[in-house]
């Protein structure tokens, strides 16, 4: 199968969907002729023009609020935030408007809206351009939260996000943009709420999100050399969450390591651990291990940043602690 980059898989999804449905447009900062700060819309302006690839002023609340209003009136907007850290300047239209309008209005409208952004450390971009803030949104009913970890997933999940009639937050990892992977030429979508077993194993379950899937797979290869057979599960969508696949795996392995790039405290690893404890308590042979980023703002200097997020080594150590 052909191999393409994560970012190109995303652009392909955008392009195919925009051809399919006239109601889709993209709105965001510097996404037009410039193609986006991370080149996530490269070439789309040339194909679809300024009416469908809309460059905005620097006004994130305005951008997301505009997308909400457009979604409420028959369009299917895709709003791009240049960095995931900028959700802080647009929380109200996401949390108090998009997530709640349908419910508050008694089901009177639908909001087919995708908010597309990136996250993650590793590029020396410091504390305001490196965060992994998606955890917050798992605590906001009415939203869906997607974290693709491969080019294949990126394309399939983005198409599903665009076709979904609910507001979807789509978080891309900056370090994945240039990673290549197999992506079929033919059309496909990936349903939400279906976890992917990225590596089958018998001894321990590693549930990992986004870029941490890559790290976990690397760790699993190392562990295999030492005779530990890890199963790596990528939930792909945090909301809806495929609890069943995770629970089933834990019932098989009896051991669970959770790896996420959000700060450990108050992030999604707690929720994932708690679910397993609630639903598979009797199958757990050891305490659940959670790995998250350190509980400090993302430091700038490479010597500090490199120990900020969970590493392959950290994952291996966590697994060994319980295997």
């Amino acid at each position: 199968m052909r191999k393409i980059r994560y970012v190109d898989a995303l652009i392909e999804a955008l392009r195919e969907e925009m051809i399919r449905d006239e109601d889709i447009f993209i709105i965001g900062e510097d996404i037009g002729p410039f193609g986006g700060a991370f080149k996530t819309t490269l070439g789309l302006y040339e194909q679809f023009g300024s009416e469908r690839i809309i460059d905005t002023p620097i006004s994130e609340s305005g951008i997301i609020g505009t997308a909400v209003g457009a979604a409420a009136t028959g369009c299917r907007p895709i709003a791009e935030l240049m960095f995931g850290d900028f959700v802080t300047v647009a929380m109200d239209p996401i949390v108090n408007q998009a997530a709640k309008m349908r419910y508050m209005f008694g089901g009177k409208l639908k909001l087919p809206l995708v908010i597309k952004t990136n996250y993650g450390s590793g590029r020396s971009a410091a504390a305001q351009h490196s965060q992994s803030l998606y955890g917050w949104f798992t605590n906001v009913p009415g939203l869906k939260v997607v974290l693709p970890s491969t080019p294949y997933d990126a394309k399939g999940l983005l198409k599903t996000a665009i076709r979904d009639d609910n507001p979807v937050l789509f978080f891309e990892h900056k370090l994945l943009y240039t990673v290549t992977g197999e992506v079929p030429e033919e059309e496909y979508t990936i349903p939400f709420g279906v976890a992917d077993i990225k590596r089958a194993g018998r001894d321990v379950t590693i549930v990992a999100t986004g870029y941490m899937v890559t790290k976990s797979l690397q760790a699993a290869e190392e562990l295999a050399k030492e005779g530990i057979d890890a199963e790596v599960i990528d939930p792909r969508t945090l909301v809806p969450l495929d609890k069943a696949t995770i629970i089933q795996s834990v019932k098989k392995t009896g051991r669970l390591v959770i790896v996420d790039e959000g700060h450990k405290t108050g992030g999604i690893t707690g929720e994932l651990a708690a679910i397993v404890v609630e639903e598979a308590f009797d199958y757990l042979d050891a305490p659940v291990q959670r790995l998250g980023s350190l509980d400090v703002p993302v430091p700038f200097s490479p010597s500090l940043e490199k120990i900020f997020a969970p590493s392959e080594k950290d994952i291996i150590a966590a697994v060994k602690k319980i295997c």
Partner: protein
Amino acid sequence: MAANKELVLKMYEEMLKIRLFEEATIDVYQKGLMPGLAHPYLGEEAIAVGACTALENDDFITSTHRGHGHLMAKGGDMKKMMAEIMGKKTGYCKGKGGSMHIADVSLGILGANGIVGAGLPIAVGSALSSKRKNNNKVTACFFGDGASNQGTFHEALNMASIWKLPVVFVCENNQYGYSTAISKHIAIENISDRAISYGFPGITVDGNDVEEVYEAVKVAVERARKGEGPTLIECKSYRWTGHSVGDPGTAYRTREEVTENKAKCPIIKYGKKLVENGLATEENLNNIKSSVQEMVKEAVEYAIASPLPDENEIYQDLYV
């Protein structure tokens, strides 16, 4: 204007509907029939009615926490409104939203809103939608003097301007944001001057004069439909009641000030004008009043008689 008898009587009636409906909501609150609160629109009827009369049925509006007037003027159903305000299953939102969250997309009502300033970018969005779909629809965006200090005001007006969107920003300057007098939160005389920052027209009109509001909005709507972009219309008005039904509204302003402003009642003023100009007789007006009274009474009875939502409905209407 004066020529169109049907229109002027309709405007009179619409204002009265809002007036009596709001009096009824206060009554309903005082009787303990309303869960939570509501923000009465009393005294500001000319704005909603003047503005919505200048719109077509399928045009859009965005509303605020003080939304009853806008909803009604845009065609909202009194029964469903009152039922919603009482948290009933038969209400606009099946009881899930309450006073601050009523919407009816089929009437172009994109929702009241509990977050001050949140409606402005949403209005930009619906206007962008109309422009993209080329369907000739205009959006009227209501918001208060207090809301004009929110960042969203600035972002929304700027975006509407650079994209020349079909939206009319209707600022209801009722002199207060909650307990805060406008002199304490804005240092300029006319909020309409803020349009200068975006390069489109801004005008100030008498918000107690329904025809003045209507004419101004009509011009702005035409401008919008022609693709010439947004207009900011400031309607100077006054909030007769406290901020919400729970607030007597007398701690931060004098009774004299309230009395003085109530004397400018947009409805009495308009009624007089109609009679003077021979567009209506006292009897006409009285008949309208009786019929509206009946309507409101029915709405309240309907709401009271309606059931509360069933517990299992709590999980419905979240995701499509």
